[in-house]
């Protein structure tokens, strides 16, 4: 039992290690991944300024822009990661190692969080300085707590996605591609999600970033009275969805691995 636990923890560390080391190995990549969200943010900042929006909206946009690093990481490096592994012939190796698939996914998630945090922090610090964003300092710790809950739930969702995407070929790439702008819209990355119809905003709560962003904005930006729900309630919902996604990921992984084996899809490439 202890030996098995240790082996699985080593698998988590090993899978995370690749991403931690990879984070700063290609520096041009770091620059692009910090610059890319900042450029979109820049365009939206100037739009808000042209419209004469309240100053806190600049902070909303910047925080949303920083959070795109996590969403993109979950889409391309968690959910569709098994697709990439299939393409490079690594999936078989993962599957014959004597550890739980959840450990491999947990390692991917831990490494992905580290990698995305490096990008998001760059965007946030640089953007705050460039656009003069003001924060409510007394809300920072609460914001950080909600942020960690958001990440746990988000990467749980990524694990569910990984099990679903294991079955697919090019569809996986296109699905990940499709889940960018529509989720930016539904989760209110660049505006308060309360601006959407109530039912739509509530449905978008399935994506943890929706509730996380809304709650963090309410606690860290002065004058933010345009939240969807009370931040405490949003944090509780995030904690529930975190547990639900981990349970769901475990079940989906077993089910879809079995299906993929029976249909001979695990080693299928370039289709």
């Amino acid at each position, binding site marked *: 039992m202890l030996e098995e636990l240790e082996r699985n923890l080593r698998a988590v560390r090993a899978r995370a290690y690749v991403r931690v080391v990879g984070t700063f190995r*290609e520096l*041009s*990549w770091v620059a*692009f*991944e910090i*610059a*890319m969200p900042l*450029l*979109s943010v*820049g*365009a*939206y900042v*100037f*739009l*808000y*300024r*042209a*419209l*004469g*929006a309240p100053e806190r*909206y600049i902070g909303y946009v910047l925080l949303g822009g920083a959070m795109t690093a996590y969403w993109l990481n979950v889409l391309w490096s968690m959910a569709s990661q098994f697709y*990439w592994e299939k*393409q*490079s012939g690594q999936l078989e190796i993962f599957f014959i190692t004597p550890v739980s698939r959840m450990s491999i996914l947990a390692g991917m998630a831990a490494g992905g969080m580290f990698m995305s945090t490096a990008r998001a922090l760059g965007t946030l610090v640089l953007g705050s300085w460039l656009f003069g964003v003001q924060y409510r300092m007394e809300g920072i710790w609460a914001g950080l707590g909600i942020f960690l809950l958001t990440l746990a739930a988000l990467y749980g969702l990524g694990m569910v996605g990984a099990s679903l995407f294991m079955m697919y*070929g*090019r*569809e996986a790439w*296109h699905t990940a*591609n*499709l889940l*960018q*702008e*529509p989720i*930016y*819209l539904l989760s209110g*990355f*660049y*505006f*308060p999600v309360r*601006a*959407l119809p109530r039912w739509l905003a509530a449905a978008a709560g399935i994506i943890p970033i929706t509730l996380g962003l809304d709650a963090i904005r309410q606690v860290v930006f002065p004058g933010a009275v345009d939240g969807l729900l009370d931040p405490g309630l949003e944090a509780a919902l995030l904690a529930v969805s975190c547990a639900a996604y981990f349970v769901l990921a475990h079940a989906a992984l077993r089910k879809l691995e079995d299906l993929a084996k029976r249909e001979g899809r695990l080693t299928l490439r*370039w289709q």
Partner: protein
Amino acid sequence: MRLRAFRLAAWLGWQMESNWTDPWLFAVYSIIKPVSSALILVVMYYVVTGGQTQGDLFAGLYVGNAFFMYVGQLMFGMSWVVMEDREFFRTFKYMYLAAPSIYWYLTGRAVAKFLVTSLAVAVVLGFGTAFLDLPLALGAVRWGYLAAVLALGILACVAFGLLMAGIMVISARHGQGYAESFAGVLYLLCGVVFPLDVLPAPLQPVGRAIPFTYWIEGVRRALMGRGMSPSLAGVDDGAILAILLLSSLATLAVAVLFYAWMERIARDRGLIDQVTEH
């Protein structure tokens, strides 16, 4: 021979773009992304103005954003071909053996993106007219001017796509990031969703040196009868067209030379068939 390569590359591009699913789902997929992207701006505008969409600024940013989709899609489409053929399907080297000109092959592969984006632009504009009070009337559109401006803008998109493809030829792994970052720079600098005059003063001359600034302004004038940027208000329609023509041709010439240079480096270093994976 070159036209045949172009035609076959276009057919191949269309198959790769669309045959992963059924046509209905593909059509929905092609429309959801651009409509969502437009709706982000709509909601941002709504939130601040309290639901008004009648202003000139709204119409200008909506039309600018719709047509800018060509820039992102064609640039990404042409440059991603290098990464996809080389890294995933490992066929890029065969294109050098088979296609009479790699330029025609890359441009042909962008045709599918052009068609899909055209559908998306039409849907976004139709949606805006039907539901968001976008002041577009088919009878008021200056079709001749629109056709000329559109053709030159697409030429500029192809030129920028070729520039990005040149960078891809010598790059490892970073396909998506480079093209998207560059599109982000252009989105910011070309006055796509806000008047050029809102940019900080040092950045405005940079924006005025890029063909897309004139393209988007020309499209607005053709569709709505007026532009959005006060700083371009003194430039007449003919001058917009002339600047767009010259800057697009200049960009294309630079792109062809740049790609040839990058290709020479790739051949020297044995990068044409490199596999770096993700």
